[in-house]
């Protein structure tokens, strides 16, 4: 589903991703952990080319993102993204947030987009909030709307960049629940998070990133309970 070969990314002189290679299968849930500044967000953003890549290759469903004929907008409709800061559109209601892209990009009729939007809001438990503006929502509600908005494009892949890090602790659970449901439905997911419980429950694999490399990867339990690399051990001892 996703194939990353020797991915490199620099910002000016700062080499953030030095050499990343990984393959992610359909329906797999991959959790990415690592210290702050290790390049987790950058890695995720390279997967839908929100960051231009400096070297190597990213393939989504056998489509090389940086190849000449690739329409990146088309690829992005198949790769949803959820941000730490939600990034809802404040000038639109919750439902309009969800309907915008299907109507403008997929050229759906208003009615179809609306039905899809309401269906997704029901799914994330926010049906009654359809017509309010994002400002009036709590953090957890905002993030659930953001997930619904991404799902409206019917992507096969979802990327999550620390989706619960900006939330008050009591709201983390409601967002993780929605994500767990998605995982169970077979969504291919790449999730940057430090929620170890989530990783253990629905993660198929955990990648530990540090210094621009994937230092270690393994099944969640194996990685958390029996890390092989010194850097992994040091990191886990701090966060667990």
């Amino acid at each position, binding site marked *: 589903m996703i194939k990353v070969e020797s991915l490199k990314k620099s910002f000016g002189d700062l080499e953030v991703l030095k050499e990343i290679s990984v393959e992610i299968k359909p329906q797999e849930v991959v959790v990415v952990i690592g210290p702050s500044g290790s390049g987790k967000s950058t890695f995720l953003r390279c997967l*839908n080319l*929100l960051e231009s890549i400096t070297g190597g290759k990213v393939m989504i469903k056998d489509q090389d993102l940086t190849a000449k004929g690739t329409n990146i907008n088309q690829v*992005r409709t198949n790769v949803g993204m959820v941000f730490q*800061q939600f*990034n*809802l559109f404040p000038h639109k209601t919750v439902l309009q947030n969800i309907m915008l*892209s299907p109507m*403008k990009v997929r050229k759906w009729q208003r009615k179809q987009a609306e039905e899809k939007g309401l269906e997704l809001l029901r799914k994330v438990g926010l049906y009654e909030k359809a017509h309010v503006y994002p400002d009036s929502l709590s953090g957890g509600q905002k993030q659930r709307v953001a997930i619904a908005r991404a799902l409206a494009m019917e992507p096969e892949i979802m990327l999550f960049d620390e989706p619960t890090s900006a939330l008050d602790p009591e709201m983390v659970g409601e967002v993780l629940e929605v994500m767990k449901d998605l995982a169970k439905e077979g969504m291919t997911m790449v999730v940057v998070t430090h929620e170890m419980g989530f990783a253990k429950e629905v993660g198929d694999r955990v990648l530990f990133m540090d210094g621009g490399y994937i230092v270690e990867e393994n099944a969640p339990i194996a990685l958390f309970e029996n890390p092989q690399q010194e850097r992994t051990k040091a990191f886990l001892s701090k966060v667990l």
Partner: protein
Amino acid sequence: MGVFSIEIVREYLPFFLKGAMVTVGASLAGILIGSILGLFMGIGRISKSWWIRYPFIWYINAFRGTPLFVQILLIHFGLIPLMMESVNPLVSLIVTLSLNATAYIAEIFRAGIQSIDRGQMEAARSLGMTHVQAMRHVILPQAFKRMIPPLGNEFIVLLKDSSLGAIIAAPELMYWGRAAQGQYYRVWEPYLTVAIIYLILTLSLTYLLNYIERRLDTA
């Protein structure tokens, strides 16, 4: 100074009012044309391609870095005669105000666009929107709201600066003030009256803008 002669004011009032209409019309035309051109220039100003960016930056620098007085003379006596057979001072005034406003409004648009959190653009692009779609449906509607106060400010500046039209004999408010002064060699009657009319115009505009801002805040 002698007694303030209300007679002079009364005689010239119809001309002052006609002039005020021209003043409002010319500055309105300037702000509208300037907004349209300024939108494109403001977006071009932050283009990634230097060959789009640089000409715009230089245009903006040139118009913001020279006096409107000089611009109006260059345009009326230089540029317009090059391009048109007949020269109309009112046209010259509107052209000058528009080109000048374009430079300032381009900067207002640029600042407005850049004030929107970059996460907005990223979210829109991550949903598959093109850059143009993201601008149109996500960035600009938010930026417009923030641009209304500085745009209103620019309108007020333009309304006052349009008085420079008097030096090329565009029949705006100040032109009639000078005409009355020239006829009677009086200072207070024409200039004080004209000043009061400008004040009424700018204060009404300020009031209107505050009203619009309040409406948008609650929307």
